[in-house]
């Protein structure tokens, strides 16, 4: 009621968009690294993971969401390197100042959540919640799609 005007929009991104992005990236990966090559398994895993996240972020709409933007920025920055997603960002000072008054347990929990959600370090807590909601939706979507891919592609 009070916040009716800024409605919290957490639409799920298109799973097909994500699937397409992801498959393409996968194909790129496979063409970049011919399967005969002695590519390290872990490296490949990480690349695929990154591909999955980037695809998800792109499917979610790069600019609408803070987390997807942060994710893409991070992915673009270190393009060919391994991206670790739960990575801490520097926090704004006023958050630190204010947090003295608040419930330390909640703050600690929110802090951990910040480290999980890409770009969370720069968000206020309420924004963080909103982004987390969307992020969770996207993640579950991603997991479903990937599960389907794995099921379909794995040798019978």
């Amino acid at each position, binding site marked *: 009621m*009070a*916040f009716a005007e800024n409605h*919290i929009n*957490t639409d799920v991104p*298109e*799973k*097909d968009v994500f*699937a*397409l*992005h992801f*498959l*393409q990236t*996968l*194909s*790129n990966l*496979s*063409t970049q690294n011919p*399967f005969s090559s002695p590519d390290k398994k872990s490296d*490949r*895993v990480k690349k*695929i*993971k990154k*591909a999955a*996240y*980037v695809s998800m972020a*792109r499917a979610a709409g790069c600019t609408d969401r803070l987390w997807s933007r942060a994710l*893409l920025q991070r*992915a*673009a920055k270190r*393009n060919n390197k391994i991206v670790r997603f*739960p990575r801490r960002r520097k926090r704004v000072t006023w958050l630190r100042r204010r947090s003295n008054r608040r*419930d330390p*347990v*909640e703050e*600690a*929990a929110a802090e951990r*959540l910040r480290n*999980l*959600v890409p770009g969370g370090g720069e968000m*206020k*807590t*309420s924004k963080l*919640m*909103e982004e*987390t*909601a969307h992020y*969770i939706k996207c*993640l*579950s979507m991603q*997991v479903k*799609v*990937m*599960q*389907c*891919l*794995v*099921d*379909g*592609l794995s*040798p019978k």
Partner: protein
Amino acid sequence: MDNELFMNTELPPAPEMAVHFEQPSSSSAMLNWALMDPNLASNSPPQDCFMWEKSTEQQQQQQSIFDSALSSLVSSPTPSNSNYSGGDGFIIRELIGKLGNIGNTSGDIYGAPMNSNSRSASCYATPMSSPPPMMSRTTPLTEFSGDPGFAERAAKFSCFGSRSFNGRTNNSGLPVNNNNGGKIASSGKLTRVSSTPALKALASPEFSRPMMIPAGGSPPKLPGEFSRKRKSVSKGKSKETPLPAAASPSPSFSKTAERKDEGEKGGKRRREEEGDEEEGNKGNDTKPPEPPKDYIHVRARRGQATDSHSLAERVRREKIGERMKLLQDLVPGCNKVTGKALMLDEIINYVQSLQRQVEFLSMKLSSVNDTRLEFNVDALVSKDAMISSSGSRVHESGLQLESLSQHNYNNHSQLHTNVSSNNMMLHPPLKSLEPSTLPRGFTHLPTLTQFNDSISQYQLFSEEDLQSIVGMGMAHNPNHESQNMKIEL
């Protein structure tokens, strides 16, 4: 609480009684009092505000006050915990002494409000403090009014009794006030609101900010909003009040004077006039209050802090709570948990599990046969392009990728231009994951033969896979997909 107490003594509501009592109160002393304050007319606060607070209860209260039975209930001010309790007791004693024979009842009257004040002492710290009960007997009233020292003292003990005063005012002005009050805040749920307009009228600059509400006096206000604002204002006031009250007794003084004036004129007419005045005041005061519209939705309940920081903090917490609810629906098992911290833990666990799942799945994917994946994707991409370029063949080929292709329809047209060479084993131009480069993956425009090939390949390798993708059952964007889904499934 005192209300409850009063409830016990059930008397039939008799508003006229109040009026009756008021009218005799128009004594010369009162008049003088009123005249003493030149600001009275301009400063007179809206009367209706006083009505909003539980008018019926107060009515009963009043009656019960008349009923001397009350005396036993509220006799002693001592239990009050407020800082001012000592002062209150002092004043009361003095009052009692002045009132003489009536002293018992009047003392009780004061005592009752004081109890209520003690409950939430700071909130009531309005200049309203001093005003003697109008419904109380005429003689004591005049005595009060005649004594300037009392007024000053009362002003200093600001906590003295806005509540009680409200009750009395209510009683006296009941009929008219109800009407006015009903207009503005029919909900009538306002507690403590009563004193705010008076504050505003006093026009102490500190109040102006929290006061923004008075702007709400203009017609568009919704009752709910209004009440909320009022509340917040009163809250804001509560902290600041002691200063002005102590520093400048004049406002409170004027207030009391005005009260007396009311009492003397008695009645509804006076009320109405004051209401009008109040309107005018509002109009005048409206300017400063206007800007902080943000506060409209801020509610401050009893006992809540009211400075701007606390308000902002509360707003923030409300926001977080709202989002939390949203998250609660998303995260399974979150409904059972109570407490924000636990809920956050649950959410964190869920996100972590999802991320772990992604990692696990990507691990699995990496172990998937490379060639198979490559073929699959290539076929998919080329077919996509084909479908979008020749949409008529979509249905006859019975493609499971319809929905996929449809999404690419939009960007396909402009991407058509950079058609890559007709290699079946496409090596898509994108080497990086840059957002700008990725769309180019869709731009291969296969020839007809390629199309056929791709179809065959596609059907060979990955029909079931893609079916699973498409038919996954996440039905968003229904307008795009619904019919396609039907066709496919």
